[in-house]
């Protein structure tokens, strides 16, 4: 299995360059808990990730305080899936 490549994106890019809607809801705990985030900046393009993640982004919580890093699967400018990265060793694999 190939290791994924992380390509650092320019700080000059904006969220609008990648998606139509910067807000997305991450679903955890077997589909029970819904948490809404807003993308602040896309930081990396992810290539050849075995779980299909396409981007890494800095995100903020929408309805409370907090920041995080999110693995995202973006297709046709729509976020199809997400996984919130919980610590520095998280490589996006389940």
């Amino acid at each position: 299995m190939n290791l994924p490549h992380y390509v650092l994106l320019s700080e000059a890019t904006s969220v609008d360059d990648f998606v139509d809607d910067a807000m997305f809801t991450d679903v955890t705990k077997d589909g029970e808990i819904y948490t809404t985030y807003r993308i602040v900046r896309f930081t990396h393009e992810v290539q050849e990730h075995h779980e299909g993640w396409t981007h890494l982004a800095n995100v903020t919580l929408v309805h409370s305080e907090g920041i995080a890093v999110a693995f995202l699967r973006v297709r046709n400018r729509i976020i199809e899936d997400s996984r919130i990265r919980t610590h520095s060793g998280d490589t996006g694999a389940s």
Partner: protein
Amino acid sequence: MNVLVCNDHAEPLDSLIAVLENDDAVASINVANTGRQVIDTLHSRPVDVSISSGTGLDFNRMLQRHLDPSVTSTLTRVVATKTPTVPLLVKAHQFGFNNVLALTEHTDHIIPTLQRSISGEESITDHPTVKALHLTPGALTRNISIEDHKDQHVIELMGVGLPDHEIAEALGLSIQTVRNRIANIIRINHLSNRTQLALLQNTNWQIPDFA
């Protein structure tokens, strides 16, 4: 105190009624055998505490939708059961009951427990199991608030068991739109999770007059 006993055939509260009838602390006892009788009694007579059986828990929750806020705001609601299990305790808490009364062979505790429940000295929220779960009392008694008809369509499909991606496909929405809407509905209704929302959606009905 003025008492309303919501009696039902599955778990009759006859022994409790006998205890209440023989205690001077009880000023009046009303026994209701149908939902309509419960509603009419609460709107026409002074009642400090209504007592339901464990099997009448779900039905009693439905009745709350038919009561004036002036009635519900002052009414203490107690579940009386021979088997006060943990699921019943948690359910009663989520359905907005104030306390659970264990019916044992000894009856000395019944009147003091009811009095402490009415005064607020004793409450279901103080139970260690309930405290540990960090649940919102009465979370499953509300009518669902939504922002528009698309929210309504989303929760109706969720209520029949569709996963997010199938709701999205059926309504021609992106999965993120569906999830954003579900997250928002859960938030504005002060619920904890998707299951609570689906449960509320499926019990969001009115009691017919013949019930």
